[in-house]
């Protein structure tokens, strides 16, 4: 079971659905939702910059198409912390896009553990569970 999951998505319905679907599966202990990359970074960067008061999320579900700071912008901002994140925090893209270009681009990014299409179906949840072990 995941301890803490970040759900980063500007689409309120989608966030609701993701959280509800995972909760139904008793997937994680805690869920935190952010509406864009900027909000998520504001929460995550202090944890990475040596304030161990709270633990890092062990899974981030990241949407790509968001205002202010998109999913790509978020990944870019995390690039300097790749080593810290390695093995401690899995980042999965979760998007409604069916654009193959984006899949390809995501696979080239070393921070990205996998690419999932919305909505989260059972196969995807299984993949996430297996990745945890």
């Amino acid at each position, binding site marked *: 079971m995941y301890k803490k999951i970040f759900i980063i998505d*500007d*689409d309120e*319905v*989608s966030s*609701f*659905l*993701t959280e*509800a*679907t995972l909760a*139904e599966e008793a997937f994680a202990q805690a869920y935190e939702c952010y*509406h*864009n990359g900027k*909000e998520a970074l504001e929460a995550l960067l202090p944890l990475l910059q040596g304030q161990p008061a709270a633990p890092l999320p062990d899974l981030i579900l990241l949407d790509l*198409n968001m*205002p*202010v700071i998109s999913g790509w912008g978020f990944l870019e901002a995390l690039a300097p912390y790749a080593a810290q994140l390695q093995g401690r925090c899995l980042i999965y893209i979760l998007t*409604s*896009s*069916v*654009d193959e270009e984006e899949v390809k681009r995501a696979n080239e990014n070393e921070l990205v553990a996998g690419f999932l*299409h*919305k*909505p*989260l*179906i059972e196969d995807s949840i299984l993949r996430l569970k297996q990745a945890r072990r």
Partner: protein
Amino acid sequence: MKILPLQFSTLTRPNNAPAPVFLTPAFLLVMNAPQQQCKPADTQAAPFYQALVTHSTELISVINEEGVYSYVGSSVKQQLGYEVEEMLGTCAISYIHPDDAACAAKVLGDIHLLQDVQMKPFRFKAKSGEWRWMQCTITNMLENKYVQGIVTNSKDVTEVVEAESRKDYHLAYYEALFFEHPDAVFTLDSRGNINRVNSHVSLITGYAEADILGCHFSILLHPDHAQLAEEAFREALAGKALHRKLPILSRLGEEKMLFLTLIPVHIQGEAVGIQGIAQDITASLQAQQLLKDQANQLHNIVESIPDPFYVLDSAWRFEHANAAYLNFLGTAREHIAGKNIWELYPFAATTGFYEKCLEVAANRTTVYFEETYPGHRFETLKFTIFPADSGIAVHFVDYTAQKLTQLELEKLSLVASKTINGVVIMNNKGCIDWVNDGFCRITGYTREEVAGLAPSLLLQGPDTDPEAARRIQEKYRLQQPFSSEILNYKKNGQKFWFAIDVAPIFDAQGELVNYIAVQTDITERKESEAKLLTLTDDLLKHNRNLQQFAYIVSHNLRAPVANALGLAALLKKLDKHSAFYDKSMEKLQVSVHQLDTVIKDISNILTTREAGGMETRKQVSLLEVCQEVLQSFEEQLQEIGAQVQLEIDSSIQMLSIKAYLYSILYNLISNAIKFRATERPLSLHVAVAKDARGYVLTFSDNGLGMDMRQVEHQLFKLYNRFHTDIQGKGMGLYMLKTQVEALGGKVKVESKLGAGTTFTLFLGAKHV
């Protein structure tokens, strides 16, 4: 001619001096002795005298008072061939030569007054009829009683007289040669001093005879050649007659060239001087030189003719051929000199050239003609044949190349006049000299109409690209060849496109003489190009739209679909009576609603794009549209206390689509209200200005503003949003851009975070 050496003493003896040989004292002694011994007459005396007289070499006779022989010595037989008896009683004068008779008669007549007379020699007729010269002394013995007559004592001096006369003869010859010689004749003594000169010496040298006699010959000579002259003198003196050419200086300083003949004079084997003849050859030398120069000059002229030239004599033999002709034949002068041309080149005798040569030789008039020899190295020759001396002279040029050029020119001129393209020949000022039929056909102008005009001024018109026209003018000015495409006007005002190739033509000195322009009507091509461009533009637009559509499908359409799917799956698992089920159902409704909105948006966007090019445009007042939009926001604007400043001239009318302008302004005002800064009242400024290509609408607010670096690539994308706390779906600016582009314009944004945003809309040339 050789002059015999003579003794100086002989030369200088006076002409009439008596010869010393005539009567020697010994002879007189013999003559006188018997006469003195005559006086003691005795009986033995008669035979003694008889014998003496008979054998004497002299002839003694006695002539009586009547002039008749009364005694003739018997030696007459031996000396003159007469018998004594034959002569006795005959008249003495009758024997004497008629020329001498008068003189002899006078001496005989005068004898009375004298005792003895020595007579000049006279001619006496011998028995044989031959005249003999006799020397005679007569003694008057008329008073002597034994003699009673004139005693003649004669001697035959024929040999002596004749010898004397021969000497006079030689001297006369020599004197004539010396004095009458047409050249200067002179003698020098053994030291080189001038002894004698004839009159020509003065004529040639300019010195009087007296001035130079006794002087050394060197005073006459050109000082530069004194040495040579001295050597010649020495050589001649040594016994060798010789010739020399030597220059002298006359008294007036004039240089003359003399041809000298120097002959040594010897007396008894000893050289006593030089006799010389000097011929003035200055003039003949000059004439010779002149002749030589002229011949040389003539030769040079003939040789310098770059074209072949030769002269044939009356028997058709080569008399002269210049280098160009030899070069043309590829032979040496010695191979043709003196040879008959028809024998040497039998082919020539089969040509028209042969006929012409015969014609010139017969008529003695010059002919000009051209002849072609197909298949020969020289295909066409152009001849001039003219009579010269006894034969003919031939000059010709190889006209093959010119002939070819001429033919090519004819062909080119055919091309230029018959081609469907326009061909224009301009003078060096760029004004038309000539145009071909093609030009007239394309432009509709006649040749006469365009003569003297500049093609650019004639053909270009208001829609001609001024930049292209300027480039063409520049090329003309730089005298450079160029190609260009330009919009021109026909005489009837119809527009057409010309592709022009213009080449400046320079003469051998590099001076510009002409421009030649070839023009092709490319109107059709230009039109299809323009069509192609529109087509490409349309395709590009469609392609962009398709990409955009794919993006919308993959993102904006897919998102609510994915949510709906997810929620549907979730709902199955949830308790239908739980609050969470209701909430999920509510979310499902939202998702389906979103889906509907997106589909409507897509439809709206596609309609706008398609309609942009087709919807009919009407005159729209910008101010009116703006006021209408503000009207619909009036309440909201009042509520937030916004200030709106309009700077739009009411007269500004645009040919446009009102709905789009409305939508554009609506989106701008809506955004300005949405993204206003809460700490200050909103201030809007809307202005329209006219620029070169159309109208420029500026829309400025003092709202939140944006970090342009962050948003510049995202701003106008569909469903892109930058403010999470402010409502919006990211459709407004995308629609705005779509509509502006549909109207043929473009959008520019300037913004500063915390200060405000300015949108500049360029509503293109199509609106004017």
